[in-house]
């Protein structure tokens, strides 16, 4: 970067964004590999991690193991390899909307309708719970559609360089 040049000019915010992460190959299964993502930020790498109250919920390692995922083994990967994978930035937003916004909107619509129609707390409460259940069902259908289209799948980008981390 040239000294004196505004730093923000170096970043092209209109470029298609990809969220990158590093994962470890833990198993081979036919033409596919199982990966476990490495912890990138927040709790696991916090200086107070050893004394943190949220540790009781489950260790970082166990939580990451729950998030293992599978990709096609087009690059001849072996167990122990570290790879860089990517998720399109809009996928995370779409996933959040599917998982959280759809049930919330359904719940609020049902609750508001019941409040307007009956004006009673108990009726509103029952309608809200019913709306939540319906919203979760719609969310499940939408998630299935996204999964079938392959929109939620992480993409293999390249092998990680030795010593490379998410923050480097």
């Amino acid at each position, binding site marked *: 970067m040239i000294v004196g040049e505004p730093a923000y000019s170096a970043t092209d915010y209109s470029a298609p964004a990809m969220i990158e992460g590093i994962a470890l190959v833990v198993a081979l299964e036919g033409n596919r590999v199982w990966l476990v993502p490495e912890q990138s930020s927040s*709790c696991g790498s916090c200086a107070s991690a050893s004394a943190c109250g*949220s540790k009781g919920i489950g260790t970082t390692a166990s939580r990451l193991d*729950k998030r293992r*995922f599978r990709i096609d083994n087009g690059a001849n990967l072996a167990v122990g390899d570290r790879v860089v994978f990517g998720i399109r930035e809009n996928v*995370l937003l779409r996933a*959040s909307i599917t998982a959280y916004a759809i049930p919330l909107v359904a*719940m609020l619509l049902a609750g*508001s309708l019941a409040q307007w129609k009956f004006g009673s707390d108990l009726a*509103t409460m029952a309608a809200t719970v019913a709306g939540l259940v319906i919203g979760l069902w719609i969310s499940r259908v939408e998630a299935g559609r996204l999964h079938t289209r392959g929109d*939620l799948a992480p993409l293999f980008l390249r092998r990680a360089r030795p010593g490379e981390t998410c923050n480097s």
Partner: protein
Amino acid sequence: MKEYILLMFSAALVNNVILGRFLGLCPTMGVTTRLDAAVGMGMATTFVMTVAAIAGWTINTLLLEPFGLGYLRTITFILIIASTVQFTEMVVKKISPSLFQLLGIYLPLITTNCAVLGIALLLVADKMSFISSVLFALGSAMGFSLVLVIFAGLRERLAVMDVPRLFAGPPIAFIVVSLLALAFMGFSGMGAS
């Protein structure tokens, strides 16, 4: 209708949970280094805060108040929030394992988010009706998410700025968030005539 809109507006902007009540400062500093993490955390917190408020109001109204168990409120709400987070995690995993891979990492952090407990206690202390409680919790959560996203955007820009070494990292982030709090104080001057 107007009172509900004002309630949500007030909860989201005028009495913003982060910049007005100074709750939930841990995720504000912890997950705002990247915009995508802030969006994921914001959406998850919005869902959990609203559902926890509904569960909290219901248990407080139907169980704690009629039986004079008000002294158990805080511990009950902590249990409700932890259960809500676990419920959400199970539901997301059941709905779609792919969604769980993308979003699951944010959920356990919400259990220790004091903003969720703070909002649940506030709406009970103010003796709100059910629908007001839901809208108050939703408005507060939307305000929380809004600040996370704004702050994450600012921090992404800060990361490529030429900041003096003394201020680099958390110090400049704290200065930015305090300026953001000053900006949000402007909303308190708005009238509802």
